[in-house]
C-alpha cells in the first residue's frame, strides 16, 4: 500500500469536504455581516443577533421548541430504554418482528408520518398544538433511542449481570448496580439524539402544529421563504452550534469506556 495518498484522491476529497462544510461556514460568517441586503462584506457586527431578541416570534418559537424537546425527550428516552432492555436482554416470540418494526419510523418518509398523524388528530378532534407536537415527536424519536441504547447493551458483557446474580444480587439490584452504570452513557446519548431530532424537526411538526403554535424550525422556515436580512443567518448559526455541541457530546459518550476517571472518583467517594 502506498504511503501517501494519490493527489487526485486528496483533491476530490477536499472538494467534497468543502462542499459539505463551506455553505454552513459561509452562512455563519455572514451572520456577522454589517449589511442588510448585500452579500458583500461590510464589517463585523452582532446586530443581527440583537435583532433576534427583538422578534417575539423567534423567542416564542425557541421556548416552544425547548418545551417540546425536553418533554418529548424524557418520554421517548424512557420508552425507548425499556424497549431496548426488552430486546437486548430477553428472549421472546416475535422479537425479530418487533426489531424490524422499530426500524420503520426511521425509514418512513417524514411526509408520511406527518400527514398520517394529522389525519389521526383530526379524526380524534384533538386541537393541534403542544400536545400533538409532543406526541408526534415522541413517536419518531423512540426508535432512535432504541438503536443507540441497544447498541450499547449489545456491547456490554452479558456475563456481568449473571456474575452479579451469582454474587447475591437479585434482578432489581443487578439492574441498579451493574446494568445501569454501564448503560447510562448510551441512554444519555440516546436522549441527546432524541432532543436534537426533536429540536430540528420541521416537516412532521409543520403538519401537526396547526396555525397557533410555531416551533423554532417553523419560524425559520417562514423566514427562509420571505426574509432576506441576515438575522436568519444568525438564528441558523445558533441552531447549528447548539446541535453540533449536543452531537459532539453524544459521540463522546458513546465512545467512552466505563471506568473513567469521573466514575472512579465517584466510586471511591461513596
Amino acid at each position, binding site marked *: 500500500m502506498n504511503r501517501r495518498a494519490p493527489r487526485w484522491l486528496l483533491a476530490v476529497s477536499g472538494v467534497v469536504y468543502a462542499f459539505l462544510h463551506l455553505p454552513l461556514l459561509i452562512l455563519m460568517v455572514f451572520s456577522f455581516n454589517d449589511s442588510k441586503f448585500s452579500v458583500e462584506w461590510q464589517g463585523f457586527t452582532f446586530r443581527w443577533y440583537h435583532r433576534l431578541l427583538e422578534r417575539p416570534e423567534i423567542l416564542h418559537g425557541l421556548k416552544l421548541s425547548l418545551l417540546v424537546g425536553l418533554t418529548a425527550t424524557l418520554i421517548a428516552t424512557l420508552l425507548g430504554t425499556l424497549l431496548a432492555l426488552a430486546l437486548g436482554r*430477553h428472549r421472546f416470540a416475535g422479537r425479530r418482528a418487533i426489531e424490524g418494526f422499530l426500524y420503520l419510523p426511521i425509514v418512513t418518509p417524514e*411526509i408520511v408520518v406527518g400527514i398520517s398523524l394529522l389525519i389521526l388528530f383530526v379524526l380524534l378532534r384533538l386541537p393541534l398544538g403542544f400536545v400533538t407536537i409532543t406526541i408526534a415527536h415522541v413517536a419518531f424519536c423512540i426508535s432512535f433511542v432504541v438503536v*443507540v441504547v441497544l447498541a450499547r447493551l449489545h456491547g456490554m458483557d452479558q456475563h456481568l449481570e449473571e456474575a452479579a446474580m451469582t454474587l447475591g444480587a437479585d434482578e432489581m439490584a443487578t439492574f441498579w448496580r451493574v446494568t445501569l452504570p454501564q448503560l447510562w452513557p448510551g441512554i444519555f446519548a440516546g436522549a441527546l439524539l432524541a432532543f436534537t431530532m426533536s429540536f430540528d424537526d420541521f416537516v412532521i411538526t409543520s403538519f401537526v402544529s396547526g396555525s397557533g403554535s410555531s416551533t423554532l424550525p417553523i419560524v425559520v422556515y417562514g423566514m427562509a421563504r420571505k426574509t432576506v436580512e441576515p438575522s436568519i443567518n444568525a438564528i441558523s448559526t445558533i441552531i447549528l452550534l447548539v446541535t453540533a455541541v449536543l452531537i459532539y457530546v453524544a459521540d463522546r459518550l458513546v465512545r467512552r469506556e466505563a471506568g473513567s476517571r469521573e466514575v472512579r472518583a465517584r466510586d471511591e467517594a461513596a
Partner: protein
Amino acid sequence: MSASWHRRVFRWFSHPGIQAWTLLGPGMFWLIVFFLVPILIMLAYSFMPRGIYGGVDPGFTLEHYARFFDPLYLDVLQRTFLWSVACTVVCLLLGYPVAYLIARPGRWRHLLLLLVVLPFWTSFLVRTFAMIFLLRDTGLINDWLLRLGLTREPLTILYTPAAVMVGLVYGFLPFMILPVYASLEKLDSSLLEAAEVLGARPSARFWRVTLPLSMPGVIAGSLLVFIPALGSFLTPDLLGGGKQMMIGNLVQNQFSAARNWPFGSAASFIVMVLVLVAVLIYLRIRGREPAGALL
C-alpha cells in the same frame, strides 16, 4: 418485608416472556397508536371518495390511485424516481473517494469521520437554507460571478432542477460515505498485498479486489441515499420553489392548498410502498440487520 415484595413480583415476572412484554408494553403502545394506526387510517382514506371540504366521505373507490396514470402525475412519479437515482449516482461518485481516503490507516481517521458526521446531524432546514443563501439571485455565488466579471446578469440557479439536485446530493452525501467507509475499513490489506505479489497494478487491484469487496457498503450506501431521496420534501420545496415537484411536495400540496386528503393519502402511500420495497431489497441483499449504526 419490603425487600421481598418485589422478589415475589419478579418471580412472577420470571415466566419467560412476561417480563419482556411489560418492558415492551408502553413503547409498543405508543408506536402502534401514534405511528402504525395513523398510517393504516391513511391507507383507508386513500380508498375513500373525497368529501366536500377535502376530507373523506364513506365509500370505496380506486379513483385516487387511478389518477396516477394521468401524465401529470406520472411525470411527478417519474421525476421523483429519476432524481433519486441521479442523486444516488452522484453521491456514489463523490462519496466513494472520500470513504476510500478515510479508510486508509492513519491518525486522521476519527477526525475525518467526525467532519462527515457533523453536518449530517445538524438541522436539515438550516443546511437547506445555507444552499439558498448561496444559490439565490442575490446570493453569494451570483455575487462572485458578477464581480469576477464572468456573467453580466445574475444566473437563475435557485428554483431550477439543478438546484434541487445539488440540494439532494448535499443532504444525502454522508449517508453514502459512512456505509462505504465501514465496508472498506473491514478490507483485509493482506488481500491487496497478495494481489500485488501476483502481479496486479494499482488500478487492477482496485477494480478487481477493492471494489468488489466493498460492494456491500456500496449497496448499503446507495439504498440509504435512494430511500430518503424518494420521500424528499424540504429540498424540492425550498430549492425548487414549488415548480419542481417530487412526490413529497405533491402530498404536502394535497393537504394544504389542493385540499384533497384522500388523494394525498394515496400519493403518500405510494411513497411508502416504494420505500418499503427498497428496504426489503436492501434487507435481502444485506442478509439480516438493517443499517442501525446511525451514530
